[in-house]
């Protein structure tokens, strides 16, 4: 089992991969909002998942990533991998 991906780390990586306009505030319950609602499209999620996969040494299937519609869903996919 590799290191656990924390919500803070996921948001940091999302910000680095796909940019941010100040909306990614963890205090604002962003973990359960949809990526679409947060302004990130499927390519942004794919890019973020690719980066997580490299940094944390986990293999994540692109098709599984495509089903993660919120940051929390992506977190559980990564941490279960």
């Amino acid at each position, binding site marked *: 089992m590799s290191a656990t991906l924390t919500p803070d780390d996921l948001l940091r990586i999302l910000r680095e991969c796909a*940019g941010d*306009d100040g909306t990614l505030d963890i205090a604002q319950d962003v973990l359960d909002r949809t990526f679409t609602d947060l302004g990130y499209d499927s390519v942004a999620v794919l*890019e973020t998942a690719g980066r997580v996969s*490299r940094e944390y040494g986990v293999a994540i299937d692109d098709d599984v990533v495509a089903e993660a519609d919120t940051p929390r869903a992506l977190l559980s996919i990564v941490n279960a991998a």
Partner: protein
Amino acid sequence: MTAACVVTGLGVAAPNGVGTEEFWTASLTARRGIAPVERFDASSYPSSLAGEITDFDPAHLLTGRLLPQTDRMTRMALVAADWAVTDAGVEPGLLDEFDMGVITASSSGGFEFGHGELEKLAARGSEYVSAYQAFAWFYAVNTGQISIRHGMRGPSGVIVADQAGGLEALAQARRQIRRGTGLVVSGGIDGSLCPWGWVAHQASGRLTTSADPARAFLPFDEDADGHVPGEGGAILVVEDADSARARGNERVYGEIAGHASTFDPPPGSGRPPALERAIRLALDDAGVEAREVDVVFADAAGEPGPDAAEADALRSVFGPFGVPVAAPKALTGRLYSGGGPLDVVAALLTLRDGLLPPAPGIAVRAEYEIDLVVDAPRAVDAATALVLARGHHGFNSALVVRRPAPTRREAHR
């Protein structure tokens, strides 16, 4: 009667001026945008000069979301499109989203972005290549990003035809407007000034090897030996005249009155190049005689063969020294698909201000018999301008712009 197709907004990013009025002032005062490449070390290549834009800061002009997914030329296109839309006074929600299209031109897509991803691929492996590469390199990316940013979902597309592409995009915008679309954001912003793009430019064999910025790109000159590549261009808002009036627009830069494109015969066919035919067909399309054309913005290849061919076409249509010819691109280098739209902006501002920008320091070969505006701006009372652009391998495009008809209010003054 087909409604007129008019230009209501301009957005410019040029090597000698970022912003419409900045570019226009630079052109009239002969400020050169050609210099040794700064972005990377080009000193070991045969050609080392470029028309680089050095005062464009995307981080202050675009949101953080857009930066990771955009090539430099896309960032410039987005900013120029913002300026053009603002200039036209088009606010979100003013028009139906399906009544606004985006049609731009591109010659090579997002080369610099692709260069970065190729580096990652070679040095670190495929898992390091950005997912954004999927579209950031693509010819149609500027059209797509502008469409998303402004919520424009009407007829859209991209034209790829080297330097002719920018005029072709405007012509396609006009076609869509004639088919019933109210507004099209059009034109082109191009650029591939990165090491990978630079190698591709060298391989074309059409660049000058001069290292003197003042004597490097010399269209129609005795010493012409190739062009300097540049980056930038212009984005224009093109509208149906009635629809623009209906939304309360008051300022029109000019009408896109005519256009034609032709393709050269294959080398060795013995048939003449087709630029002259493009000019004649565009004038026919606009319903104007050659003598009614007040100014011509030349393609100005800066190579002896193509320069002679363009001079031949101008002489055949207009007679020796028959019309003033401008080549403001002598100050910027050739901007590929951005070049034609930038010349259209210069033509529209010539109609507005009555001044033709110079191509300083050029001594035109006597046998060309063209009246090139060289050392200082020339005052002209111009109502009709012809803009020419040619793309490598045979594309010819000719576009006629005309001074707007006076509005009812002006006519009653």
